[in-house]
């Protein structure tokens, strides 16, 4: 079963919903090791995506993701705006003009998004950033698809890997982003960007598993 335009759209909508529900939680995480705005940043960006979709939905996955990317870039600001924006922009490029994506294409799309994220932010694994959720998640997706899993179950594995990656940020000392200024004091706190990543990938899992 390929990934459809409609599913991709449902994913963005579900993400908007869970980010809104978790706004305070994300901001509280950011208050501990950052500047207390990650929740409102993500909520603002995804609300704008909903508004843009309401104004007129694109006809292919590439255009849809490009709309999401440009909206995030144009409304989030902070570190999250360029990072998520670049991630979605690279994904959009892979999905250009496609109404649906085969499983392997989905893997390639996420891999490309992750590379874009890393190009922009220059963070490797272990720096206590959203990369620590995205990287194992994309690896898990790829492994699942390579092992012949349905996309939905590979995406479930992706979600679990994102969750584990998110939790793994807790003991890390940050070396990138605002939390890095705290030095050892960043240890013991979960990274807000890794948390929003998990929420977004959980949304994908939920959308793909719903009938």
């Amino acid at each position: 079963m390929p990934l459809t335009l409609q599913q991709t759209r449902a994913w963005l909508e579900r993400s908007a919903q869970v980010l809104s529900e978790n706004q305070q939680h994300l901001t509280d995480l950011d208050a501990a090791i950052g500047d207390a705005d990650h929740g409102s940043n993500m909520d603002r960006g995804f609300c704008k995506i909903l508004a843009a979709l309401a104004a007129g939905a694109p006809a292919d996955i590439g255009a849809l993701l490009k709309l999401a990317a440009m909206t995030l870039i144009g409304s989030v600001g902070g570190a999250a705006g360029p990072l998520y924006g670049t991630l979605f922009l690279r994904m959009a490029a892979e999905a250009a003009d496609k109404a649906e994506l085969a499983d392997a294409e989905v893997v390639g799309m996420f891999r490309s998004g992750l590379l874009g994220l890393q190009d922009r932010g220059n963070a490797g694994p272990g720096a206590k950033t959203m990369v620590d959720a995205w990287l194992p998640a994309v690896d898990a997706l790829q492994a699942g698809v390579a092992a012949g899993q349905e996309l939905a179950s590979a995406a479930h594995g992706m979600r679990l890997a994102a969750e584990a990656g998110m939790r793994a940020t807790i003991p890390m000392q940050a070396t990138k982003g605002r939390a890095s200024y705290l030095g050892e004091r960043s240890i013991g706190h979960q990274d807000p960007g890794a948390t929003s990543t998990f929420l977004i990938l959980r949304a994908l899992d939920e959308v793909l598993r719903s009938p």
Partner: protein
Amino acid sequence: MKKLINQVEDFVRESLEGMAAAHPELVRVHLDPNYVVRADAPVVGKVALVSGGGSGHEPMHAGFVGRGMLDAACPGEVFTSPTPDQLLEATRAVHGGAGVLNIVKNYSGDVMNFEMAAELAAAEGISVANILIDDDVAVRDSLYTQGRRGVGTTVLAEKICGAAAERGYDLDRLAALCRKTNAAGRSMGMALTSCTVPARGSPTFDLGADEMEIGIGIHGEPGRQRLPLPAADAVSEMLATAILQDPAYSRVAREWDRSASAWQDIELVDEPLKAGDTVLAFVNSMGGTPLAELYVVYRKLAEVCRKHRVEIVRSWVGPYITSLEMQGVSITLLRLDDELTGLWDDPVLTPALRWGA
């Protein structure tokens, strides 16, 4: 949360509208996207200076828009850097044909958004230079962190480069001047209280009645260390000594190479302050600390500088780069030479800083 605001989501916009109403002869405010430009922008033939960052640091940056300082400021949401398209629109609004200098504080968000904006502007044929300000000595290394934050030196660079642009420096010379100013400036700050980001509604951190956060940035983040709050003299000495004894600072910075239309890594080294240097001393309130306390801090700073045989020849005391209503103070020392001193003394005419005009 006790603040003089209306709806949280209207705060930045309404504050800008108030600014527009208060200073129509100095600035024009554009909303959605939000940016502030000097009333006579674009100034043809002059390099335009653009800065920006999260809101909540007022008067920085919008209060420093005007003749002799910034051409445009882009305020983001509270503590959130502005977006690339916002920066691009501001850039277009002030570009006078001689290129644009972006003064960028070194935070991952600011850096990335300004980089994307610079790429977009360059694609439109506008000559841009992005110069990073990274002067916060509370951040020791750049290997295990995002590198030093841009704090107090930012405003000094805006003043000095703004004056130089009025004098007719071209973009290359201005970029070099900005780099030199950044290399000459060092800062460190501390907080007595946290601050409350309106969208969150409660203080970013809690501090005990006898505690301070030392080595803070300007976003209400917790600092490097939490310590018992000593007398003001000890605070002042702690900050001053960290600055005066800070060794050479090297790191790799990414700058836009206009000829190659690509980012290029360059190695930068800031030489330490040393006996015999002359400096500008800047004692800054984080927002809620009143002037009388700043002068108590200044008094000790002057004494510590004397002891280190560093001569203060210019001073600046007040709330200029703040974190909302946070109580606390930061100190910046900027090594001066004749060029920088002269440019500092040049006329400036902005809502928050004005002399000789």
